[in-house]
Each structure stands twice: as structure tokens, then as C-alpha cells.
């Protein structure tokens, strides 16, 4: 069959497929799958018979468009978010617990080491922070302030909420992206944040601002510090895929690990929004006595630990093959 004859016989089918793609009427839309399979067959024939490139390209274009239309991702199922929060997210963290503890060791290890060092030898704080930063942190946690945690007394709580979301979640995402450098970027960001926070903690405890500082950070820290460690853990999942891909190619290992890793990032980002709420509207308030803040903080840390240790276990057990 000549290309002209082929075109003459089937052109009407292809314009029908174009109409189905535009979905002018419900009948057109229903015709899409059948029209698409027909166009696939025509494309295969046109290639096999070495028809002119313009004809082959036209059919390829049409088939690509229809394929794009037909194989869309299904919309998320109802209850997907609840299922993720109540079950999949904590289960995912438990499944990769080793990397969680590695990230936690990096962050809290750096934090504890430098905090103790500064407490023991106060001048060491200047090895991590410069003098103006130290003065700024002292001003932020001066017990004489009405608002804690920022140098501007007049800054509204909502402004600080916006700032915490923009700044902290940004750091969380960067910690994740650092995993693409073989995990080293994530580790460096974890260490750096642990060192900075630890130096501030050691220094402020030493100069006697411990009540304002610890009562400020302890509450939202339950969410914020956990989320930063989780972001580091997600980055380390990417890093491990690149450094030790096992039996897969590096590219394949990376693609396989990126899907669960980004789900951990969803959870970490939610935790950081929670942290920003607590930090802006609760931690910064001087009206709440420190003792109450410590009590609430103990509750929050307990809730976070319980959530990651227990949530979704019964559902997992029910699903497990016997």
C-alpha cells in the first residue's frame, strides 16, 4: 500500500482520535482507548513499511498525546493522608531506623560535645560563633525580654511563624538535597546545625540564661529537632543509594530510594509546620512560667517518641503474612 493510500484510508480515524483528545463530547471521550490502540497499530505499520518520516512523525505525535492522556496518574484515594500519618510514615521511619539513628548521632552528638566543651571552657564558643552572633543570642534569651527567641520585641507572633516555616523547612529541604552528594551534604548540614545549637546552649547555660533558653527550645524542639534528623535521614537514604547501591545500578537504586525518602520529607515538613506553630505562639511567650513549659515539653517529646515507636504497629501486624 502506498503512503498516499494509507493516509487516504485512515486520515478520518486520526482526526477522530484528535477529537477524542479534545473530548468535545462524552461519546468522543469514550472512543479514546479504542482510537488510541488503532493509532498504535497504524504507527507500527507506518514504521515497518518505511513510510515517509512526516507521516511517521505525525502518528508518533498523535500516539504520544493519547498515551499521555490515557496513562495519567490516578488521583489520590480518599483517606490517603490519614493513612500516611497514622500508619505509613512512622512505619517507614522504623523500616529505615539505622539511618535515623546515624543522623541523630551526627546531630545530637555534635550538639552534646560542643555544649559540654563550651560549658567547661567558655571561650570555646568563639570557635563556632563570632562575637556579634554570641551577643545577638545573648540578647535573644535575656530574661528581661518580653518575647523570646528573636531580637525584635515588636515582631508579631504570626510574623515569626512565617519566618520559622520559610527558614526551617528550607533548611530541612536542603538537608534532604544534600543527600545527592553521596550523603555528605546531609551529614555536614546536620553537624553544622548541631554544633551551632550546642554552642549556643552551652554558652547561654554558662552565663545563667538557662531558664529562658531551655524553656524556649524544649517544647518545639520535640518536633523541630526530630524533623531535622528525619530530613537528614532522608538525605542519607539517597546518599546510601549512590555510595552503596548493592545489586542495582546507581541510577536504579537512587530512583527506588527517592520515593520512600520523599515520603519521609512530607512527614518532616509537617512536623516543622507544627514546630513553627509551637515556637511562634507558645515557646516565645514570657507569660507562661518555665515549669509549665518543661511539663508540656516532656509531654510533646513523649508523644513524638510514642508516635514513631507505636503508630501503625497493629495494622502492620495484621497485614504481615502468617
Amino acid at each position: 500500500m502506498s503512503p498516499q493510500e494509507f493516509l487516504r484510508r485512515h486520515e478520518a480515524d486520526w482526526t477522530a482520535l484528535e477529537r477524542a483528545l479534545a473530548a468535545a463530547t462524552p461519546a468522543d471521550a469514550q472512543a479514546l482507548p479504542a482510537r488510541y490502540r488503532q493509532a498504535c497499530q497504524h504507527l507500527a505499520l507506518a514504521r515497518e513499511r518505511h513510510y515517509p518520516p512526516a507521516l511517521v512523525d505525525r502518528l508518533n505525535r498523535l500516539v504520544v498525546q493519547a498515551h499521555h492522556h490515557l496513562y495519567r496518574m490516578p488521583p489520590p484515594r480518599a483517606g490517603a493522608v490519614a493513612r500516611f500519618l497514622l500508619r505509613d510514615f512512622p512505619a517507614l521511619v522504623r523500616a529505615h531506623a539505622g539511618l535515623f539513628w546515624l543522623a541523630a548521632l551526627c546531630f545530637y552528638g555534635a550538639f552534646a560535645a560542643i555544649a559540654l566543651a563550651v560549658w567547661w571552657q567558655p571561650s570555646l564558643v568563639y570557635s563556632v560563633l563570632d562575637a556579634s552572633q554570641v551577643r545577638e543570642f545573648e540578647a535573644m534569651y535575656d530574661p528581661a525580654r518580653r518575647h523570646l527567641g528573636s531580637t525584635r520585641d515588636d515582631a508579631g507572633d504570626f510574623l515569626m511563624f512565617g519566618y520559622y516555616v520559610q527558614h526551617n523547612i528550607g533548611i530541612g529541604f536542603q538537608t534532604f538535597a544534600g543527600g545527592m552528594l553521596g550523603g555528605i551534604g546531609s551529614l555536614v548540614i546536620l553537624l553544622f546545625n548541631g554544633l551551632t545549637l550546642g554552642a549556643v546552649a552551652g554558652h547561654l547555660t554558662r552565663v545563667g540564661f538557662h531558664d529562658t533558653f531551655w524553656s524556649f527550645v524544649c517544647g518545639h524542639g520535640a518536633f523541630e529537632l526530630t524533623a531535622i534528623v528525619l530530613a537528614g535521614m532522608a538525605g542519607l537514604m539517597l546518599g546510601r543509594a549512590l555510595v552503596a547501591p548493592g545489586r542495582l545500578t546507581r541510577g536504579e537504586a537512587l530512583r527506588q530510594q527517592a520515593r520512600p525518602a520523599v515520603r519521609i520529607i512530607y512527614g518532616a515538613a509537617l512536623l516543622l509546620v507544627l514546630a513553627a506553630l509551637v515556637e511562634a505562639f507558645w515557646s516565645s511567650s514570657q507569660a507562661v512560667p518555665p515549669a509549665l513549659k518543661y511539663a508540656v515539653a516532656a509531654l510533646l517529646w513523649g508523644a513524638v517518641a510514642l508516635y514513631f515507636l507505636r503508630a501503625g504497629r497493629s495494622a502492620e501486624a495484621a497485614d504481615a503474612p502468617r
Partner: protein
Amino acid sequence: MLDSTHSVATPEGVDLTLVPAGVLPRATAFLIDLLLRGVILVVAASAIGVLGHVGIGLFLLLLFLVEWFYPVLFEVLGGGATPGKRSVGLQVVEVDGRPVGLAASVIRNLLRAADFLPLLFGLGLVSMLFSPRFQRLGDLAAGTLVVWTPERLRTVDLPPAPAQAPPSPLRLAEQKALIAFAERSQRLAPARQVELAELLEPLTLARGDLAVTRLRGMARWLAGER
């Protein structure tokens, strides 16, 4: 033939041909998006500036969303293309040719931070140049491609010449090579056109300018002109 197309096998048993886009069109699309994001932020800043501290808080939230989720929003809901990509004629697809999903879009856009390192998309550029499908690091992890949209792949006009049939049947790759020659010949110096055309003397049975004209004529015939 040396080209950068990407083939996807479909369940229907045909291979789809996708054409990944290179660095320059993607950079153009990025700059257009950057400009648009700037405009959004400036407009928002002047609109909510009157709200005082609450306004600044809202602005910071918007800054966060625009910085990280502007591309995700358009890629997932807008057919795989941000306004910048749409204007250049690009779209993001999964490597198997399907429209990009939420997870893949979030992965590639969060990992943009890694592509940006150490300076102005240095790693992203290296990754795109070394990957056969022009994928930056975020694309590699998400399993996505940035391809030319089908609409943008229509063939360009061929230079004028009397259409004529090749003396013997040609394979598809050979036909494509002839058409590609005709499409690009006007951008070559005349002497170079002749030099290339004379390589096919067995086909054209001519030398010099006549060889070029005959090749163009065959290209027009292959492209469907009679």
C-alpha cells in the same frame, strides 16, 4: 543516526519517540519562570504590605511556597509544564512517558537545591551534559525527563526544489537523514552544502549545485510532496 531521542515501549506494543530538551531551552524556561516568580512576589508584597506584621508573616509563607512549590503546582496540575516551560514548548514526563506525578515532581524540585551547587546550577549542568537524556540530578532521582511537547516537534519548512522520487527505496533512517539535510542546508555555507551532497553521488547522479537541488527535491518528495 546520532540523535538524542528516547524510546518508550508502551503496553500496546509500539515504541513512542520522545525528544529530551537540552540545556539552553531549559535555561530559557527557567529564566522566564524566575521572572514570573519575582513578579508574583512583588505584587504580593505590595498587596499585603498594608497588613503590617501579619502581612510580613503571610509574605514569608508565600515566599516559602513560591520558592519550593511553584514548579510542583504547575507540573502536577498544569500538564507537566510551568508557564516558562509551556512558553518554550517543554514538558516534564516520567521516563516511561506518562505525565509526571506528585512524588516525582516533588523529588525533582526539592533536589534542585543540589543541582544549584556549587554555584548557579553547576552540578545540574554537569549532570545534564553527562546524562544521555539531559537529566539534572533531580531528574535522575525522580526518574523524569524534560521533553519537547509534541506540538513543538512539527517539521520545519523545507527549501524550494522540484519534488522527485529517490531512484531506489530508502530505509526510514536514510529518509530522515535526507530530510534533516534539507532542513539544515540553508544554514550551511554553499560550498559545504555541495561537499555533503556530493557524498551521495550514487543517489543523485549529479555534482555541484545540481546535487544539492536533487537532494532537496528528494527530501520534499519524502516529506509527502508529489
